[in-house]
């Protein structure tokens, strides 16, 4: 039993670095996707949706990847705290932006938006 446990630990030590690096890379790619969405979508409300990819999955994947790469539990605790605060504050920021736009009277584009519309380019 003890041998089996040390075996698992050895495999985990080998596996966790590539796994962590892979998750960091995936998170960075998702942030890139979010940026592409911000550039492509037509108005402020839809752009917020694209930015929330960066907020949630991008940041979470990068942080989990860093947790796997980290040398000790103390770093994991700090990264976990960052994760919690990010997940508490980023929706508040998105809501503040959307609410400010709504209060200022920015009308959202409603209804189907096709790629034939050219209003994405001049914004």
């Amino acid at each position: 039993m003890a041998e089996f446990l040390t075996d698992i630990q050895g495999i985990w030590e080998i596996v966790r670095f590539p796994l962590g690096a892979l998750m960091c890379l995936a998170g960075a790619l998702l942030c890139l996707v979010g940026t592409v969405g911000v550039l492509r979508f037509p108005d402020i409300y839809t752009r917020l949706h694209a930015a929330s990819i960066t907020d949630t999955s991008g940041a979470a994947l990068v942080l989990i990847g860093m947790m796997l790469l980290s040398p000790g539990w103390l770093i994991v605790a700090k990264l976990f705290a960052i994760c919690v605060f990010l997940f508490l504050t980023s929706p508040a920021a998105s809501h503040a932006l959307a609410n400010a736009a709504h209060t200022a009277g920015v009308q959202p584009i409603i209804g189907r938006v096709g790629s034939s519309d050219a209003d994405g380019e001049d914004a």
Partner: protein
Amino acid sequence: MAYFLGLVIALVAFWLGMSGHNTPLILSLGGVSVALTCILAYRLDIIDREGSPYVRLFGFLAYFPWLAKEIVKANVTVIRACLKADLDIAPALVKVKTICKSDLAKVTFANSITLTPGTVTVEIEGDKLLVHGLYEQDAQPEAFAEMDQRSARAIDGKGAAA
């Protein structure tokens, strides 16, 4: 009293996680800072349901995995929309009525909506939320019913009296 204890435990855990030093001097400094924070919180009169929501932590811990699953599902949809060669989104504004009673539960519900990509809470008035969605068919009021019930159960408890 439970709120006060919850605040103390949370602060001590947070301090230990941040510092990691075990010498008596640093530990006593940590104890002083926790005590100072508690005194300031008491003087500000914010040791209540919202200032120290740790009593509801277990309800929230049961809620979060479900929310994470929803976030992943919604992420896939929005990533598809971002990368599609033809932009085919159908944004919509919908009014959603919530069954959440307390402010904390409403905040949880609204934040959950905002945290899921593709939907953003624009405004809250009483028990009605104005939600902007990326796809009209995904942002119908019925789509939020389960999230509403779950966040109400997680924060308000089963009785939902509060």
